[in-house]
């Protein structure tokens, strides 16, 4: 398979890169100075693209690679891939579901605890060396708080399971109601937002869910509401969120994703009720290896004409 051209969209994982280099003819797109010239030169040899949450395969790239057979994403989200175009051209698409579900759900709960219990602020306070006897920091209890989940897929269900262990009543909004799920369903996000203490975004990014967290939803959450986003940055109308937090119209936020990563609105830097993470939802040694193995396994299966492990298209 060493002659098969594989285009890696951006740096994502040293182990994956190494293995792709060993098994295929790997092209590192981020190292190419003249991208369109490159694509023209290699249009006949690139048969696979490996993308992730930052960069995938849009219509232009797909058009430029007539021999493209498969797009394997090092992510579960598919928003950076033009799925319709892939379907049209018979290009297979795979992602990395299940292996990262637990890590993302763990992170959602971690953000809830970090915001409510002021974990980062407490740590900063002790590190400042200013802790004196008789100085106390009051925080908000997490156990028993109402958790509202947008998107009750694998990750949403995993978040619900964890929050239940803290006796949190669970409610959700999803495209369709899930009768097997014993949680309260709300037919729209504003109603969900008005009836929970912590709102967490765990759905996929599509045309419909872009800016699903908007001014109306933020208003419904109110000045004690806490927003957690472990989905995609564009799920949230970021300028609206920033002004709500700065003006105290929203109680707090825990954000792992942003509209223009790695740019993060600087107005949020000074807010102690906001916890900001650099898109680390699946960022553990164990899970990234599992994700990489899944990408490699899918590519291998495809080129050996075996069934794909985790096909989407």
């Amino acid at each position, binding site marked *: 398979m060493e002659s098969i051209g594989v285009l890696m969209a951006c740096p994502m994982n040293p182990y994956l890169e190494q293995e792709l280099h060993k098994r295929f003819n790997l092209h590192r797109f981020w190292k190419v100075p003249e991208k369109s010239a490159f694509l023209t030169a290699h249009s006949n040899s690139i048969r696979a693209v490996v993308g992730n949450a930052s960069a995938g395969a849009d219509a232009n790239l797909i058009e430029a690679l007539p021999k493209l057979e498969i797009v394997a994403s090092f992510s579960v989200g598919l928003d950076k891939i033009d799925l319709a175009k892939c379907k049209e051209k018979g290009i297979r698409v795979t992602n990395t579901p299940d292996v990262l579900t637990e890590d993302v759900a763990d992170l959602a709960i*971690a953000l809830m605890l970090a915001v409510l219990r002021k974990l980062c602020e407490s740590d900063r306070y002790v590190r400042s060396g200013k802790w004196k006897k008789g100085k106390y920091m*009051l925080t908000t209890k997490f156990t028993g708080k109402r958790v509202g989940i947008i998107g009750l897929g694998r990750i949403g269900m995993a978040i619900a399971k964890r929050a239940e262990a803290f006796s949190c009543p669970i409610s959700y909004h999803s495209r369709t109601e899930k009768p097997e799920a014993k949680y309260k369903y709300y037919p729209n996000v504003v109603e969900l937002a008005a009836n929970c203490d912590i709102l967490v975004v765990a759905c996929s990014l599509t045309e419909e869910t872009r800016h699903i967290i908007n001014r109306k939803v933020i208003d419904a959450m109110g000045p004690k509401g806490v927003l957690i986003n472990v989905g995609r940055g564009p799920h949230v109308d970021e300028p609206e969120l920033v002004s709500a937090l700065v003006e105290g119209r929203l109680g707090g936020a825990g954000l792992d994703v942003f509209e223009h990563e790695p740019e993060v609105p600087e107005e949020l830097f000074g807010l102690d009720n906001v916890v*900001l993470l*650099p898109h680390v939802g699946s960022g553990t*040694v164990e899970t990234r290896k599992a994700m990489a193995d899944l990408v490699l396994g899918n590519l291998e299966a495809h080129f050996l004409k075996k069934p794909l492990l985790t096909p989407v298209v």
Partner: protein
Amino acid sequence: MAAENQSQTSQSDLPCVLILKPPPSFALFGDHFLDSPKFQYLKAYESPLPLSQFLHTHAQSVQAILSSGGAPVTADTIRLLPRLDLVVTTSQGLNHIDLSECRCRGIAVASAGTIFSADCADSVVGLLIDVLRKISAANRYVKQGLWSSQGVYPLGYKLGGKRVGIVGLGSIGTEVAKRLEAFGCSISYNSRTKKPLAPYTFYPNVVQLAANCDALIICCALTDETHHLINKEVLSALGKDGVIINIARGPIIDEKELVRCLVKGEIRGAGLDVFEHEPDVPVELFELDNVVMSPHNAVFTWESFEDLCKLVVGNFEAFFSNEPLLSPVALDHLPQFSG
């Protein structure tokens, strides 16, 4: 005039509760936070008299004491108060009360019971995920603008599937176990006695527990036996992939040894709400990104204080009405803490 005299008389009829030093809730909510119309407080800290003189003066009126971590009840104090029948502490911990003296004198003790257990357990989970997933460190990274300039943040470690070892499977330990099971962790524990109803693996000593877990959680009381329970041997058994979380009492861990292990990378990380010499914290820890610290505030939530107020006042009111205490501590089977 007559009315004033009357109210003064009824005020002095109220039973007296002694407070040696104000509890943390007074600093946060003012010193009428735990008031009740059914009893009054004698605030020793407001008197110009030296304590022994103050106690001598009021010896016959003091039936009960409101204690907290910073206002210990020693045998000396107890011996100066012949009418003392009850100590209510605002904490779950009891290491600041001379329990054997209370037992001898037949003095009842009431604590915060289990009202803080959920908050403590939540702190444990928060600290553990923070250490493994580098939440506080990554938050610092982003807020310093380093994500856009320096790029990708180092990977953390997955919580799911980790083996959790709980030292002390009491109320807090049980709440911790329940939560971490939902994250896919396996639970084992060491306790003074095996708990036959607990569905978790029991290890007869802490070294064995440490050797068989990835995260060691300290949830036990501080007593003579548990002082420096977590020592060099235990930390070595825990190993370089192990994390330790302490929300119990600082002196349960040999802090010098812990700091040495962390600085040398001999354990993976630590989450600490308590320290041997609070509020002094070893400065070596300030340099470490794999350590997450909090200023002994694991129970400091608005909600818990509301619950505490009801419980403390409720305990005193029950006592003075000859009704059963709401959260009595059983003194018969308690181990010693000689301070």
